[in-house]
């Protein structure tokens, strides 16, 4: 028995060691893949390594990893290193330290740290790395942007007013004010200062003001910044209900369905991404209450959105009438270009003349299954929306943008029509 146990232990130890060695080999292999492109189309002999700080591991991060590792990496002679899902600042700082030890020259940060931009930028500077963040300039990190650190390539984020305007536009074009309607607005994390959800909520409220010519008793800010559900009472008597929070909070879905069961609301307007969380509940309520709900909301590419747009409810309508999507490769390309410009000595291209150093991408509205199907097929290996020509247009060393205005304009040029013209259906 003892010898058997000993053998088991020896075997398990051997297996773990083999796994470790195999993994190490895998790492080297991936390095080798990057290395293999050195003699290819790379414009620079310098090989860089970039750490990607991920906040969650999902379809988007997998797509991003594919784009960076297998498309950008070989072309620009860059190796990428990805973090596990980072849940707090301490873990983010630890990843920076580990990335520096692993030889990273730069960090692309997807962890939202507006309050801690300074810590991370300074930590990166201390470790000799360039830093760029998925986020923008605000009150909390204004000093950091103003300080213009040499290693800080700035931020990149969605053009949030534009995202909000997509919803406003749809509402103005599709809501018939002659009928009797009630509106439930899920404001998500707007009360916590989430830019995206703030802009979407504000635009939804603004659209209602303009559509009905109404005036809320409270200001729009007070409505979407409320951390508890609040009625948007107004002079026209239109039922408007602002419901904060996200499905991860206990009781959130129950609260939402309870509000819908009152029968006061037939429009569901959602600022956070709840496409995969409330579709079933909405459909069940429609059937149970024999009431047609119209739902528009922020979303991302994936099975949840595909189901919501493609599935017809009991009244024969799409479960989700309109949503917004972004192309992961565009966002990734922007982040990479900003970092690469700084690494190759063109840091000035990242600096916006007004000092914000934040570049923006625009989201796209999707309203039909056909449109979604076409868009879903685009941002895949061999059909990247942000192709090498697009990336080069932002990289000074490759003959691209020499000012941040050019950099930004090149991003905006890649709109739905331009992508459609290149990739088609």
């Amino acid at each position, binding site marked *: *028995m*003892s*010898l*058997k*146990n*000993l053998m088991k*232990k020896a075997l*398990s*130890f051997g*297996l*773990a060691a083999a*796994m*470790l060695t195999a*993994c*190490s080999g*895998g*790492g*080297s292999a*991936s*390095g080798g893949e990057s290395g293999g492109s050195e003699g290819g189309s790379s414009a620079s002999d310098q090989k860089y390594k970039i750490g990607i700080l*991920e906040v969650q*591991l999902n379809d988007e991060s997998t797509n991003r990893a594919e784009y960076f590792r297998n498309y950008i990496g070989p072309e620009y002679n860059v190796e990428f*290193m*990805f*973090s*596990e899902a980072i*849940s*707090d*600042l*301490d873990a983010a*700082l*630890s990843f920076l*330290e*580990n*990335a*520096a*030890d*692993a030889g990273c020259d730069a960090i692309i940060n997807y962890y939202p740290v507006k*309050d*801690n931009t*300074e*810590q991370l930028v*300074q930590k990166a500077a201390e*470790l000799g790395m360039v830093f760029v963040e998925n986020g923008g300039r605000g009150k*909390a990190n204004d000093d950091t942007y103003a300080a213009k650190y040499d290693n800080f390539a700035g931020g990149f984020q969605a053009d949030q007013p534009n995202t909000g305007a997509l919803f406003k536009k749809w509402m103005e074009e599709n809501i018939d004010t002659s009928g009797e309607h009630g509106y439930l607005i899920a404001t998500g994390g707007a*009360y*916590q*200062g989430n830019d995206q959800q703030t802009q979407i909520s504000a635009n939804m409220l603004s659209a209602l003001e303009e559509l009905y010519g109404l005036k809320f008793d409270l200001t729009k800010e007070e409505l979407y910044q409320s*951390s508890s559900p609040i009625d948007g009472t107004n002079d026209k008597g239109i039922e408007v209900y602002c419901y904060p929070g996200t499905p991860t909070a206990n009781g959130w879905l129950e609260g939402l369905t309870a509000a819908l069961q009152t029968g006061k609301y037939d429009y569901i307007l959602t600022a956070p991404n709840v496409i995969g969380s409330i579709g079933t509940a909405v459909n069940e309520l429609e059937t149970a209450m024999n009431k047609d709900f119209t739902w528009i909301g922020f979303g991302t590419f994936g099975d949840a959105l595909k189901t919501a747009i493609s599935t017809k409810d009991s009244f024969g309508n799409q479960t989700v009438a309109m949503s917004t999507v972004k192309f992961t490769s565009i966002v990734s390309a922007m982040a990479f270009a900003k970092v690469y410009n700084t690494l190759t000595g063109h840091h000035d291209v990242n600096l916006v003349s007004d000092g914000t150093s934040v570049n923006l991408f625009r989201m796209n509205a999707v309203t039909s299954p056909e449109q979604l199907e076409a868009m879903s097929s685009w941002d895949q290996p061999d059909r990247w929306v942000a192709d090498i020509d697009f990336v080069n247009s932002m990289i000074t060393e490759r003959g691209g943008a020499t000012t941040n205005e050019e950099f930004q304009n090149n991003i905006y040029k890649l709109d739905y029509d331009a992508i459609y013209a290149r990739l088609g259906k």
Partner: protein
Amino acid sequence: MTVKDLSNEERAPKLTLGDRINIIKNHRFFPIIFPLTMLVVLFFLFVALTGGKFLSTTVIKGIFNQSLIIGTLATGVAFIYTTGNVDFSVGSVMGLACVIGALVYQSTGSMVLLIIVTIICGILLMMVNCTMGVTFHIMPAMVAIVAQSIYSALCQTLVGANPLKVDFKTCQALEGNLRYVLFGAYFIACLILYHRTEIGRKLRFIGGNENCAVQTGINKSKTLYLAFLFAGIGVGIAGVFQTLRTANVAQNVGNGMGMNVMLATVLGGMSIFGGTKSNCYAGLIGAITVTILDKGLLMMGVSSTMIQGVRGVIFLLLVFLNSERPKTLPTKQQF
């Protein structure tokens, strides 16, 4: 008929290899030496695999930085685990202590007060947990579950949407020397108290056999309060380290740390069910082992998707090699 004289060596029963291994495993120094050996082996394995880069100052400093908070927490909580009680609310306790310390800092601007208040809060909150168990006879694990929820809710309420900021430059200045001094002093004090005084012996006795310990005249309640007191000091100090490292306190501070402390303790070679083989440095060894694994795997180029799997296999292996599986029903000796 001739009777052959047998030497002592010949008369002794034959030992199999397994018996010999069990003798080694049951040696009183084995729980001390084995995790340390594993740590050293792992360290030099990564030194070899990274071509010596793992020996650089920045790597060593990084290992210390990343294992300090869990290591400090685990050192303190070992006093509780030793008695056979499990308290995994330490992460939330640390979080609330950080929040109160940061609030005091925001209203006074005093870093000294932040440090003092954070440590005092750590102690007081742990004493509350202890009182629930000792005075009201609620199972410590139940107290931990409830306390964790209450303290997390308080953190969320007190912090709100935006993290509480502490002056970044002051934190940077204090992060180095103060941490070394504070941790060194606390760790040495714990080592002496735990391994060289009557208090440590009483704690281990209670963890090994509570009834017997009480029969010999040990005051269980008083000893438990002492255990929670030393743990509270550790929790408070870990809270100070946390605030200094991040220069702010968010509402989720400390979330999940209780489980990490448990994991570090087990990896360090100590049973969370306490007993006579317990020690107060297992958690630190475990925390350093985890950090070395994380850092080493990343430096070797292991992808993030693989790291969790590899880490899991190695954790299982370490626990497997470090554990006893008696043929009888599970005892407190089993991890």
